[in-house]
């Protein structure tokens, strides 16, 4: 049976064998945890605790600022040691709250079970917001904002992203295998809020055990389990929408423009925790993997755990790593050091050896068009990159640079090692700067 898919895309080596069979392990608490106040798309939170104050696990330590923002919570009980700028996964130093765990790990006292049937949609969305739930696929977009589309854009199809197309990462895979009840509870909660006609969970065909398990558990429900062809970037939301519904999100538009909403399955689980148990989002599954780490694992980590602690828990290095990536090898953020903490969107920590890093020099473009074939958004990466590098902002915009999802497929296939995504990113920044200048 031919599996559904999207146009374009690439087939990088999966490298999931390091951790796909390993059950989730709890990560012990470190001596110090640094919780950044900005872990999501939108306005950073503002600290609402003081140095020296004792906080409980799950207590709000940073309040949301505005609608597109979420609060930040203490990942464990302990004392606030400092509130200052600390190294952040984005590369710069940003405000964070440092907590010294007291070992008790005691939850906030007023958390209680709520029967979801007794809540209205608005109450559900508010609980999700208070819990600080953001997209767990890596983008970290506030979930409550996504759950509040304008009334003129009704959601007819609700998609759940269990694809995990990034090589090396297996966090979502293990979630679906080991915590499918939480995931499905979240699915039904979200379906309650959206009221969509069709609910689909998309899973790549390289996870047959997860597909079988979910199919069994959803046998008598209207939830469809849709196996998808293994191709990167199937997990990108526009590509998932194309494969599941055959629709194309218009240029510059959002999934709600075609009546679709997409949520990661881990986000669904977090929603279930938030609504039913009142628990804020303070932990997630993170795949620590790569040839440079001794014991690759799927760890249940808390926000604020330093990367150095994760490395220690996984047995340390096989050899000095050549590259440290937070996320997957295609779209992850390269890190400068290990003193950076885990944040809500950290789906993986990839450690590559010196030999695994490509250092080939850049050659001239030979117009082979491999990038054009690979691009999942039907763009011309070679043209956009060429215009961006020559600072021809008008042409960069004309060639739809703003539609690029920065998936990295073009850079991956380029035989001349041209840094296409980096050039396109520069072009996008130039286009945005020009638009901002025009508004002034």
């Amino acid at each position, binding site marked *: 049976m031919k599996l559904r898919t999207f146009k374009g895309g690439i087939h990088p080596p999966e490298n999931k064998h390091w951790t796909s069979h390993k059950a989730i392990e709890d990560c012990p608490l470190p001596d110090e945890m640094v919780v950044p106040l900005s872990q999501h798309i939108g306005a950073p939170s503002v600290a609402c605790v003081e140095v020296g104050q004792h906080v409980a696990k799950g207590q709000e330590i940073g309040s949301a600022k505005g609608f597109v923002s979420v609060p930040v919570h203490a990942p464990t009980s302990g004392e606030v040691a400092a509130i200052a700028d600390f190294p952040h996964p984005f590369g710069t130093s940003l405000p964070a709250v440092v907590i010294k765990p007291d070992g008790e790990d005691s939850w906030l006292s007023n958390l209680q079970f709520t029967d979801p049937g007794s809540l209205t949609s608005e109450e559900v969305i508010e609980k999700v917001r208070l819990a600080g739930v953001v997209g767990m696929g890596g983008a970290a977009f506030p979930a409550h904002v996504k759950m509040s589309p304008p009334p003129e854009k009704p959601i007819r199809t609700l998609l759940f992203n269990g694809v995990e197309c990034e090589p090396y990462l297996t966090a979502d895979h293990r979630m679906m295998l080991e915590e499918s009840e939480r995931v499905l509870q979240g699915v039904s909660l979200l379906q309650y809020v959206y009221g969509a006609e069709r609910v689909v969970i998309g899973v790549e065909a390289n996870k047959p055990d997860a597909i079988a398990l979910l199919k069994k558990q959803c046998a008598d429900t209207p939830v469809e389990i849709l196996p998808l062809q293994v191709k990167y970037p199937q997990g990108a939301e526009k590509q998932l929408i194309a494969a599941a519904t055959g629709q194309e999100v218009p240029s510059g538009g959002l999934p709600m423009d075609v009546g679709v909403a997409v949520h990661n399955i881990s986000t669904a689980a977090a929603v279930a925790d938030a609504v039913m148990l009142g628990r804020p989002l303070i932990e997630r599954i993170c795949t620590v993997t790569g040839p440079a780490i001794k014991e690759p694992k799927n760890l249940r980590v808390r926000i604020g755990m330093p990367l150095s602690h994760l490395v220690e828990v996984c047995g340390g290095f096989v050899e000095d790593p050549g590259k440290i990536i937070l996320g997957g090898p295609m779209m992850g953020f390269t890190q400068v050091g290990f003193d950076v903490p885990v944040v809500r969107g950290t789906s993986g920590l990839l450690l590559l050896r010196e030999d695994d890093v490509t250092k080939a020099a850049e050659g*001239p*473009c030979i117009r082979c068009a491999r990038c054009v074939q690979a691009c999942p958004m039907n763009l011309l990466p070679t*043209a956009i990159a*060429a*215009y961006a590098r*020559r600072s021809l902002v008008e042409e960069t915009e004309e060639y739809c640079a703003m539609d690029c999802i920065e998936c990295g497929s073009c850079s991956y296939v380029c035989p001349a090692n041209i840094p296409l995504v980096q050039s396109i990113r520069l072009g996008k920044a130039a286009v945005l700067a020009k638009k901002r200048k025009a508004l002034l």
Partner: protein
Amino acid sequence: MADLLVILVSAIFVNNFVLARFLGICPFLGVSKKVETALGMGMAVTFVMTVATVVTWFLQYFILIPFGIEYLQTIAFILVIASLVQLVEMVVQKVSPVLYQSLGIFLPLITTNCAVLGLAVLNIQKDYTFLEGIVFAIGAALGFTLALVLFAGLRERLELCAVPRSFRGTAIALVTAGLLSLAFMGFAGLVKG
């Protein structure tokens, strides 16, 4: 009717003024850096060519030949073309100052453009009737514009290429022009003569 179609196709593709007859190379290389400018130049030349054909045809058959002063053909034709170009210059400067700036010196140079004079003379040489002359002029102008716009498009793409140092600028443009000319040879034999 079929004859007129043959003349049209021949003038645009088979015997393209720029790429097959090699007339009008000056604006072809000078104005073809951007597609908008090339299009503007093409339109100006179309106007000049068409009106010049009409006027020179009448001039030839109603003044030069009856009075037996065919030897004044070149001077008289240039006089007509020069006046028309001056008119076009004034109109362009008024209507589109941007185009006027970007065409620069090449606008008045349409006067000395061998394509325009060549068209006028060819019309007489081929003994075309008035209607045939008009169609020939329109075809020639369209072919000229086509060649310019195609070449401008190619040159815009060349801007993005890593051209070897010794080939940069005019050199690679000339090589490309030669290749374009070669491509248009594919039309040879489409129309007899």
